[in-house]
């Protein structure tokens, strides 16, 4: 059975707290923390972007897999913050990882779902036998407009997953996708920041797609929520994934390990994939894992995975998500944050 043979994640070391952002705009920090369940978020340095995050995560995935990069036949990166408007991120990442030139590469975009989209296609190519190994990456340096609700959550990070058929760390048991045209969040060409439909991003967008995809994959596999040891849903804030999990019949205990948004923020295309990486850092053999992403516009991808007995040994070959969230960090003032996110306009 095809599945994940290597995985890795990367989260930048800079942080800004929800309190620091709230103070800047005269908002009540306690109300923000309580309302969105967010404490702090990662911030990319001036020298970090989707490409550098993808390389770090991809290197960790190859380390865990122990696979010669030359055997990787496809590389896909999902992001809504590709550094170039025209020129692929994937070519830089492949060169840095030692993959190719005999490789198929594409950059994907589907708001916050682009990461699982990349994973979905990579897995499909391996399962069909078209390529021996394929890598799917979800990474972002997310944009949020100043003084917008998104500013408290939009963060940076990502995860990479290498799919193959031998020495599998987590079998892919089933996949499912649910998509409709729903204008809940968008950014038009030339605009700095995305816009969103406020409360419209909730029920008709996030909750409809996440519940539909999850219920369908449960039907397809004949599994009940109680069969899973872990589940992770896209994390636009702290509240939504807990609420949708509860609606679907999952307990807080099942969600806790992958629910990393309170201290990481929303890494958009990297959100649920990094949550999955955090779960793989802890899962035991035969544990069932559910991941359902959400991308505005809108759609959800669901995967059911089963951990194998190889996972415990291989996870030690690269840093864990928790070690990056709880390791050395640098806390920024709002002014430093504005500088790092290049929100300050300078004379040319």
């Amino acid at each position, binding site marked *: 059975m095809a599945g994940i043979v290597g995985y890795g994640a990367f989260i930048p070391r*800079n942080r800004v707290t929800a309190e620091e952002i709230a103070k800047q705009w005269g908002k009540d920090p306690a109300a923000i923390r309580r309302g969105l369940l967010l404490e702090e978020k990662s911030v990319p*340095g001036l*020298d970090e972007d989707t490409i*550098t995050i993808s390389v*770090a995560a991809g*290197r960790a995935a190859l380390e865990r897999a122990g696979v010669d990069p030359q055997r990787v036949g496809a590389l896909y990166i999902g992001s809504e913050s590709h550094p*170039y408007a025209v020129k692929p991120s994937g070519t830089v990442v492949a060169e840095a990882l030692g993959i190719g030139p005999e490789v198929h590469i594409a950059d994907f975009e589907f708001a916050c779902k682009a990461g699982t989209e990349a994973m979905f296609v990579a897995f499909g190519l391996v399962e069909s036998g078209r390529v021996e190994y394929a890598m799917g990456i979800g990474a972002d340096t997310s944009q949020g407009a100043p003084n917008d609700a998104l500013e408290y959550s939009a963060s940076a990070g990502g995860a990479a997953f290498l799919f193959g058929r031998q020495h599998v760390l987590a079998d892919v048991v089933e996949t499912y996708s649910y998509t409709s045209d729903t204008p809940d969040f968008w950014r038009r060409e030339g605009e700095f920041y995305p816009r969103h439909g406020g409360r419209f991003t909730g029920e008709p967008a996030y909750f409809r797609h996440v519940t539909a995809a999850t219920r369908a994959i449960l039907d397809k596999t004949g599994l009940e929520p109680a069969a899973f040891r872990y589940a992770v849903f896209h994390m636009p804030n702290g509240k939504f994934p807990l609420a949708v999990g509860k609606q679907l019949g999952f307990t807080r205990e099942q969600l806790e390990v992958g629910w990393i948004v309170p201290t990481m923020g929303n890494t958009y295309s990297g959100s649920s994939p990094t949550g999955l990486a955090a779960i793989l850092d802890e899962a035991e053999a035969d544990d069932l894992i559910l991941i359902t992403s959400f991308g505005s516009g809108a759609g959800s991808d669901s995967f059911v995975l089963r951990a194998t007995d190889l996972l415990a040994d291989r996870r030690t070959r690269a840093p864990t998500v928790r070690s990056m969230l709880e*390791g*050395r960090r*640098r806390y920024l003032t709002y002014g430093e944050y504005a500088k790092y996110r290049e929100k300050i306009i300078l004379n040319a």
Partner: protein
Amino acid sequence: MPSPRYWREIPSRYRLEAAACRGCKRVIYPKRQVCPQCGGVEFEATRLAHRGRVVTSTVVHVAPTDLQMEAPYAMAVVETEEGVRLMVQVADCDPSEVLPGMEVTLEFRLIRKEDHGGILCYGHKAVPVE
């Protein structure tokens, strides 16, 4: 740096590709045609480990235009496990804490942007070990 030169240097900048002399085993980075130690001309391709130690460092307060937003920042000579020395920027730390002997890893980072609208140039920077 013009794009063609940047493109030519991709193997050494992106993958830290080096050459090990078949004669004296010295690792040379970036690759050369002749070994500076024994004059040998036969090499084996190798890649540098992503770990090293700071040999010496300085803090740049007055930065070139491209890096003004990053100042002050530390520049260091880092010696890798293979005995190769390379000059790199040290990121994700207080620059005054970068001192000889500090253990570092080499991470893939954006080195500079080639003027407004130009290409993005990537390579490696040192980051203190956790």
